[in-house]
């Protein structure tokens, strides 16, 4: 199935999705990598408010190349980064902040999958390295937070239009294409 979705996402939006579905996404999304995840969790523990509202949000595992011209930010290119680096922190993140969608590449582990089932969140895969194409779906940079973390690790607020094709690779029903692929992988004894 193919879906056009608009952020913020509802529980209903994501629970209907199944692995193999294709999504084209519009609305506001936030880039978050390792450092921003860590700081958000720290803020939560200290009872401090985040500079962005993550409820129903779609986060993008991405560290873009950004250019500043006449005090305005422009995305040069912005493809997905390896999501697996965030395996350890993401379940707590999904639980605490109510994130509904994660755009990334390479997939995440079963700890994250369990959180997705429980709290209603999907993993949307976009091919790694496709940074120019991904940037072509970004209409506007609506701002940046935590720029002190550096260009790659800051939170960029991006207005996107028909960002896709995003492949639903992990869903709220406990299915993961990565797990399916791993199950089908022949054992070394079979191939050697």
């Amino acid at each position, binding site marked *: 199935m193919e879906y056009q979705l608009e952020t913020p996402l509802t529980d209903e939006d994501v629970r209907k999705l199944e692995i*193999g579905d*294709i999504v084209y996404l519009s609305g506001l999304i936030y880039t978050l990598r390792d450092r921003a995840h860590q700081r958000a969790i720290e803020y939560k523990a200290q009872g401090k408010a985040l500079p962005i509202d993550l409820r129903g949000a779609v986060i993008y595992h*991405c*560290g*873009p*190349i950004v*250019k500043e011209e006449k005090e305005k930010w422009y995305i*040069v*290119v*912005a*493809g997905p*980064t*390896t999501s*697996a680096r965030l395996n350890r922190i993401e379940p707590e993140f999904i639980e605490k902040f109510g994130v509904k969608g994660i755009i990334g*590449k*390479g*997939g995440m582990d079963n700890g994250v999958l369990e959180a997705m089932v429980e709290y209603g969140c999907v993993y949307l*895969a*976009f*091919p*790694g*390295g*496709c*940074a*120019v*194409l991904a*940037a*072509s779906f970004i209409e506007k940079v609506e701002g940046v937070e935590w720029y002190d973390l*550096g*260009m*790659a690790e800051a939170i960029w607020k991006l207005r996107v239009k028909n960002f896709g*094709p995003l*492949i639903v*690779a992990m869903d709220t029903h406990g299915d993961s*294409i*990565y797990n*399916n*692929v*791993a199950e*089908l*992988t*022949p054992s*070394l004894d079979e*191939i*050697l």
Partner: protein
Amino acid sequence: MLSRVSAKGDDSLREETLKDAVKKLIFKAVVELPEDVKRAIKRAYESEDSELARIQLRVILDNIRLAERERKPICQDTGVMIFYVDVGAEFPLKDINLERILSDAVQESTREIPLRPNAVDPLTRSNPGTNVGPSIPYINWNVIPGVDYMLITAVPKGAGSENMSALVELPPVEGLRGVKAFVLESVIRAGGKPCPPTIIGVGVGGTAPVAMKLADIASLRKIGTRNSDPFIADLERELLEKVNSLGIGTMGLGGKITALALHIERAYTHTASLPVAVRFQCWASRRASLRISKDGVIEYL
């Protein structure tokens, strides 16, 4: 594509001209994929049966074209810059401070292209924003006897593929089967993380750092070339076929093409050792070279 820039000046190359040439080289490396890599991705698209893999390979091919047209970096991970400098023993290097020229070229390119400022201190993670720091850009020096030119290759090495590098010291009794098993295990463990379809470099023998260096060189070898030793060339074919029977596919979402190529380089080793190293290049396998004659004529290869 071939272009020429003449270095003005008399006996020695002017450093400014060389720096500008290296900046052009860096730009070419991050914007355009080498022809052999593009051809291999097209072939993968044509031969792939998996629908999800085909959707993604189509996106990848569109992205490659768009990057060339818009003159923008193919991938936002413009890596840390690694240089390979093959310098002829007859080349007049003594008047050139190449380390400084390469560092300056990287720093200026970071601002001008721009490149993503990726280079950080490994312990404090502080980022100077320049892509320059101790041993970065890194230069792999190689002196070639009897040659009067210098060849500079720029490789922007992204972290997705870098982080999947693997090394083992096998007990020699594990033998050829152990070598094959380690390569396949490394590919399985890497899954979709190094942005497959990848180019896999395998280094066998030497000592640990030698094996890793050989794997690195193997991962940068042109697709379609084979090791000159027929036994190793056969092993390259066999292992590529086995890797592509794993079903990992484009970006780990399944498919029959997990690697575009698999190259092996070999060194003799200690009788009690069997080091094996595996290194990946993502599909966006970026590398660009230029050659400078001793008279200062620069040619982009």
